[in-house]
């Protein structure tokens, strides 16, 4: 651009300015409206969409599929087209060229024309690049593999304790007992007859820090027979899961810490009203989670009796059915009363269920073994349970 053109341009701009408006209030007004709309949009996004709850960083979990933030997706997608040897072209050469092209734009595009009709080449290139970026982003989104399994993320402490309780019920109870009381292990392959010290005692709780507990669960204590549970050592638990179990142990067994109220309420088996028929979902499931499922899940020695959901409880097992609605002579009831029968020995093997819990089982089976609370509401207890009286005589 020569001096004359510059002069002409400035003259023209002055004329435009003269015809124009005042920055305040005209321009500011528009800016303000747009900013305000943006602000409402932001607050709306924060309130109604929020931020997804993600599990904590876990360097040992290599199954995680990393995704960048959406505005880097196009670059991420682009790299798929630069295999092996020439990858560095996509990762460094192209971005460098793009940045330099942008930075130096006013220095190599020296034509004085500003209207797009006189800048067709530049406008076309930029349009193609932008369309390309949008297309790559869309492709990246479309080809995102669905998350393998929605991982449970316990955000608050009460949630963590409840998750920990559930995980403890599945992974720990078979050896350490439902209350961490330890004792002689029965029915666990390779550890039959081993006697464990309690882990709910002060000796453990006062001397093991959260980190110690975490490490023990993570790595196990192979020399003592405890297998590793952390993903990094071949177990099934993620970092967040182990933290949840540690919190469960700490808040349930450490007498210096107080169990949050909402946990105490959520994890207890609800009391029954006079004549109420218990249901699987409200009363039986919490007990099974705590006392049974640790062994009664696939891959354990359990005569193929699985107890992960209502259907499995009613139908599975080598001696199925173990639960027959209305029949107090069902295998499960007899074993809860510590009978040795063809289907197996006393259950749970190490320590009897409290009588009041066994009574709930009996009322459930006698009342028709309903699945949901809604179903239970339509049922009545047989006469022998009204009024609440001695347990029936299944045991000799």
């Amino acid at each position, binding site marked *: 651009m020569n001096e004359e053109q510059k002069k002409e341009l400035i003259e023209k701009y002055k004329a435009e300015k003269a015809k124009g408006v005042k920055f*305040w*209030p005209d321009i*500011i*007004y528009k800016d*303000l409206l747009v900013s*305000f709309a943006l*602000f409402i949009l932001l*607050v709306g996004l924060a309130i109604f969409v929020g931020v997804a709850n993600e599990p904590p960083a876990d360097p040992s979990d290599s199954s995680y599929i990393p995704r960048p933030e959406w505005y880097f997706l196009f670059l991420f997608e682009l790299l798929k087209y630069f295999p092996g040897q020439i990858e560095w072209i996509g990762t460094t050469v192209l971005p460098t060229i793009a940045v330099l092209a942008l930075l130096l734009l006013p220095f190599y595009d020296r034509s004085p024309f500003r209207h797009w009709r006189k800048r067709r080449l530049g406008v076309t290139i930029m349009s193609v690049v932008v369309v390309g970026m949008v297309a790559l982003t869309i492709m990246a989104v479309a080809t995102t593999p669905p998350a393998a399994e929605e991982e449970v993320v316990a955000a608050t*402490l009460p949630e963590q304790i409840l998750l920990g309780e559930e995980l403890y019920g599945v992974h720990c109870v078979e050896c350490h007992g439902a209350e961490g009381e330890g004792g002689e292990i029965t029915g666990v392959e390779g550890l039959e007859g081993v006697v464990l010290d309690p882990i709910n005692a002060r000796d453990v709780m006062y001397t093991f820090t*959260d980190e110690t507990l975490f490490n023990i669960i993570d790595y196990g204590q192979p020399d003592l027979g405890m297998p590793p549970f952390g993903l990094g050592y071949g177990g099934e638990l993620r970092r967040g899961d182990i933290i949840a179990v540690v919190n469960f142990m*700490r808040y349930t067994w*450490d*007498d*210096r*810490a*107080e169990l949050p109220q909402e946990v105490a309420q959520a994890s207890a088996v609800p009391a029954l009203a006079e004549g109420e028929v218990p249901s699987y979902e409200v009363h039986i499931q919490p007990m099974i989670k705590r006392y049974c499922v640790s062994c009664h899940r696939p891959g354990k020695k359990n005569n193929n009796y699985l107890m992960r959901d209502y259907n499995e409880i009613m139908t599975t097992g080598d001696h199925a059915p173990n639960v027959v609605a209305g029949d107090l002579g069902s295998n499960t009831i007899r074993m809860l009363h510590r009978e040795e029968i063809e289907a197996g020995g006393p259950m749970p093997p190490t320590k009897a269920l409290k009588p009041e819990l066994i009574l709930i089982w009996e009322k459930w089976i006698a009342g028709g073994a309903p699945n949901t609370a809604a179903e239970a509401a339509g049922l009545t207890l047989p006469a022998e349970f009204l009024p609440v009286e001695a347990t029936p005589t299944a045991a000799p």
Partner: protein
Amino acid sequence: MSDHLDRREFVKIVTAALGTIMGAIVGLPAIGYLISPALRVQKNEDWISVGPLEKYPVGKPTLFSFTRSKVNGWEKTVNSYGVYVVRTSETEYTIFSNMCTHLSCRVNWKDEAQEYICPCHDGHFGQDGSVTAGPPPKPLIRYEETKIEDGNLMFFFKES
């Protein structure tokens, strides 16, 4: 001219109004955000066992220490507390907090002086917990709720 002035006034009002709305939507929650940890009062109370009564000699205040754990923000803190158990006779006893009522230093029982002495500002308390010298405004805190269960002396601890 007057038309332009009106427009100016209008924009001024709109600017002020929208600015106030945005300030309020961010500002008011922000105040709550800053002060909310201060508003959460944690209940810290429980029955604490200090062991069998026989463990404590009659007439000589004896220190018993225990710990409680609390969650502050995202961290668990284990705090240590101390109480003086004083047996006034075979069956009667009193339990005092060892926290000075002045500025929360820990007092010590001195046999030779027969007093609790606070090392920070030289507060003195008699065996019954009353202030005998120095700056403390109130006698030592006494735990009134006590019981004996399974041969162990227990008191109801309440952090104020």
